[in-house]
């Protein structure tokens, strides 16, 4: 929250009383702030991301010291991966391939199927996320702020927890089927199907769509809607022509990120769908397990190319949107209880109640079942799993993961990586919203940490950082708390870029120019003028960056140099043996700690317009 502090200082009337040391610091920040952060970001990205990842990806094109494209050609021509499209790469006529693609028994291949399920998951996430945004942005009801703070919660959950919650909720013997049976309706069998995977993906990603859309909705200027209405537009027309265009970029951004995330999905698919539905990422994992690095890297590069193309497409679209500068006066919220008994108002409320029921089933029941799983065993109610956590804390050996250090580390790493991710994200947002050729390409590449296969990043961190490099006689390796924070920040900053850049893009250039003309440095103009104007985006990005750190598993466990650096997700994983109770108890601790943090972040940074 450093930048926020600074902009407050800037506003304060007491600034002429600054001590000489602080004045000096201010001077330095003013003069070289932006450049320094940009350079530091670049170095950090190279060290903890680009270099490590490159050590793995290079294996796709460099086999036995020889540059080659054979790996790609083989993958592209393999119907197992590319289905009917593989025949296109093998030189068959596009017409024949297109014909077969339209037939009923077409083969999509692993890559095709992965894209297909990602597309369906994206649609489901948008369908679940946008109504939530509507309710959160447009209605006033008790607990609204808390619910808004907690929407992001599913984002941090390890797949093991989601699997437990989903099986208990949607299983043959789950509460839904019991309820249907009780009223004499036919039961359903949802589990181990594509549908189950898609709902789980929506569980993870609808919150993303919802948060981003809520932010945009809350930034719609009420006066523009009022103008439209006064000119005779119906409420629907005003929505379609004035409000909706301001929401599309946010909805599409949420959708794009959802596609990228679900395109790289893996463990949850195997937990709720089964082997029939495995994705590209699964094969990257398998190939790396078997040390078939060349093919793994080739496949990961193809995966990356597809994700980045989708992101690039979105960024081109985003750049074409020119929205009016964001309004100073948001739309007033309506009470949830209808003020009049008009048919329209009632219909809308009925819709909200229906959506509420769906949301309870998809989001609340799985979470409740996770909690339930942590307090039951074969004999019924038990607190023994929590008792285990206390015992481990009291008596655990140094080589064992202990609950309290895990909680403390999660919070510390979360806050620290947030402090690093925010400046990086803001500076990259500034750099990519300037006018120059190819800036969208730079912007796309800056999103790479979201899109590179997690398995590849893990192996890269191992090779590039943990094993280290030979420098002279010394092997320089990097690990420990700082490396973990750096890795988390690199994974989290793209969210900040995505939530801050659209706002910056739409600011009136004259604002900055006037500030510069009055003697403010570029950095000062950013801190005092631009950031306060796009504050909701900054807070949204911060929330996601923090959430990402809290939920992160693989780079934490790889970079930690001791159990004393493990976090809550690592503890959950480590407690799984042949009984899930202890792990679910730790999972509930993760849920509670994270919920409290989100509410606190929201209260600290949100003001009345925060996200």
């Amino acid at each position: 929250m450093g930048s926020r502090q600074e902009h407050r200082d800037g506003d304060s009337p007491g600034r002429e009383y600054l001590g000489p040391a602080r004045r000096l610091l201010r001077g330095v920040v003013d003069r070289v702030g932006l450049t320094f952060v940009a350079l530091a970001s670049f170095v950090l990205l190279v060290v903890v991301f680009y270099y490590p990842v490159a050590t793995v990806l290079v294996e796709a094109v460099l086999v036995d010291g020889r540059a080659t494209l054979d790996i790609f050609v083989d993958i592209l021509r393999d119907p197992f991966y590319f289905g009917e499209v593989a025949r296109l790469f093998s030189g068959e006529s596009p017409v024949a391939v297109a014909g077969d693609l339209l037939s009923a028994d077409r083969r999509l291949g692993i890559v095709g199927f992965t894209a297909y399920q990602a597309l369906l998951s994206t649609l489901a996430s948008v369908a679940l996320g946008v109504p939530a945004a509507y309710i959160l942005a447009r209605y006033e009801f008790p607990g609204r702020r808390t619910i808004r703070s907690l929407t992001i919660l599913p984002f941090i959950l390890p797949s093991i927890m989601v699997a437990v919650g989903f099986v208990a909720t949607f299983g043959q013997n789950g509460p839904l089927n019991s309820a249907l049976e009780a009223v004499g309706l036919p039961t359903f069998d949802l589990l181990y199907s594509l549908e189950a995977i898609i709902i789980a993906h929506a569980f993870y990603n609808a919150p993303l769509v919802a948060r981003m859309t809520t932010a945009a909705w809350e930034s719609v200027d009420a006066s523009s809607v009022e103008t439209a209405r006064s000119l005779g537009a119906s409420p629907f027309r005003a929505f379609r022509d004035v409000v909706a265009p301001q929401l599309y970029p946010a909805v599409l951004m949420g959708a794009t990120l959802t596609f990228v995330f679900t395109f790289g999905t893996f463990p949850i698919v195997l937990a709720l769908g089964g082997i029939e539905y495995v994705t590209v990422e699964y094969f990257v994992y398998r190939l790396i397990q078997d040390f078939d690095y060349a093919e793994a890297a080739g496949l990961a590069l193809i995966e990356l190319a597809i994700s980045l193309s989708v992101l690039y497409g979105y960024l081109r679209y985003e750049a074409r949107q020119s929205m009016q500068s964001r309004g100073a006066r948001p739309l007033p919220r309506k009470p949830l209880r209808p003020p009049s008994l008009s048919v329209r108002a009632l219909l809308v409320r009925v819709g909200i109640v229906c959506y509420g029921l769906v949301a309870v089933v998809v989001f609340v029941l799985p979470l409740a079942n996770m909690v339930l799983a942590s307090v039951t065993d074969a004999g019924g109610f038990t607190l023994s799993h929590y008792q285990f956590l206390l015992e481990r804390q009291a008596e655990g050996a140094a080589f064992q993961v202990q609950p309290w250090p895990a909680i403390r580390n999660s919070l510390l790493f979360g806050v620290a990586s947030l402090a690093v991710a925010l400046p990086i994200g803001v500076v990259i947002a500034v750099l990519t919203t300037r006018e120059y050729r190819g800036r969208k390409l730079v912007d796309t590449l800056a999103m790479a940490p979201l899109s590179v296969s997690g398995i590849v990043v893990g192996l890269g961190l191992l090779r590039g950082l943990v094993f280290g490099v030979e420098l002279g006689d010394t092997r320089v390796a990097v690990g420990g708390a700082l490396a973990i924070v750096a890795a988390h920040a690199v994974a989290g900053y793209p969210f900040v870029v995505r939530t801050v850049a659209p706002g910056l893009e739409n600011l009136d250039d004259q604002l900055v120019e006037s500030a510069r003309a009055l003697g403010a440095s570029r950095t000062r103009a950013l801190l005092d003028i631009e950031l306060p104007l796009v504050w909701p985006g900054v807070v949204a990005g911060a929330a996601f960056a923090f959430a990402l750190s809290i939920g992160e598993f693989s780079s934490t466990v790889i970079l930690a140099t001791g159990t004393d650096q493990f976090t809550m997700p690592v503890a959950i994983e480590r407690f799984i043996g042949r009984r899930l109770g202890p792990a679910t108890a730790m999972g509930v601790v993760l849920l509670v700690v994270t919920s409290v943090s989100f509410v606190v972040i929201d209260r600290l940074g949100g003001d009345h317009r925060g996200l």
Partner: protein
Amino acid sequence: MRRRKVLAALGTGAVTAVAGCLGGDDGEDGDDTPADTETPADTETPTDTETPANTETPTDDGSGESNDGGTTDGEQATLTVGTYGSFLDAPSVSPGARVKEEFESEFDATLEWAAPDQEINYYIERQRQGVDLDADMYLGLNTDELVRIDSELDDGLFAEAGDVGRVGDIREGLQFDPDGRALPFDTGYISPVYDSTEIEAPETFEGLLDDEYEGALIAQNPGTATTGRAFLFHTVHYFGEDGYLDFWADLQDNGVQILGSWSDAYSAWQEGEAPMVVSYSTDQVFAEADGADLAEHQIRFLNDQAYANPEGMAVFQNADEPELAREFMNFVLGPELQGIIAEQNVSFPATETATLSEDYNELAKEPPEPVTFSYNELKGSMEGWVEDWERQFISN
């Protein structure tokens, strides 16, 4: 305090400790660490000025019961043992703490556990990249992992076990390394577990194809779960290389559900998604501890068989403490440790001489006919088996 630690960690930048390993108090690290005054306490890396705690081990044979791991300056020797995470951390299956305690009370040495998340692949990758292993030995090695190591690394990873006194106590048929490097320290059997209040499980593999068992079995994916791999190997063993894929095609038609991990599958089974699950033959030990009805936790040995999955331990070629490691292996094969490991890891001892409690013998079931593939049978074949299975099963 916390802040200082963080800053200090930045100061060194060179922390060559094993992920998940607390210790790393071994001499190798010392050479790599800048003799920086900021070297923090929490990185466990000795500075140059410190004499490494362990150098040569002057023991002679591996049979000594008293002490060892001698040192040059009177400090204790440290044995670093790599293993998998749940051996240390999961309350249901973690003898790690007890093993360390017993070892340190009997030997004048320190035992440091390391549990990298990638398990044995972590050490294979270190070796491939030419980096010091930072551990003396590994505990928890399957036959197929040993095969993978040897096909990946021309010079291998492990040294021959050498003179370990209690090798003779190991049960018939458990030894799985033809080159005498890995020694088994326990074994498990993989078989279906079923809820007898729902169904009576079939007696044979072929029985699984009957209509009455449609959708009745949950198994795990051989690419991501040890149990899944063992069950697949069992079908290859039973139906042969030429027959197992046909069996699986029929089993798929009969609605077998293949999930990613043992926990995915077992929790689904517990929620009643299917009455049978591929799991361990020690299932009743957990069920009893949970206060569950044992009728809901019945073991079925298909064709009176179960696939045995012995776990081994072996000393790394470049171990700093090879002699101490050998003594550790001998110690692990002793009657008392064999009993402790079997009961706390909920598996079966590797030796004839283990001390096990009566209850344990009652609840942990052994198949009439354990089957398993030898190292030589797996070598060159197993990757193909799994891949062919994957390509047949997954058809998008």
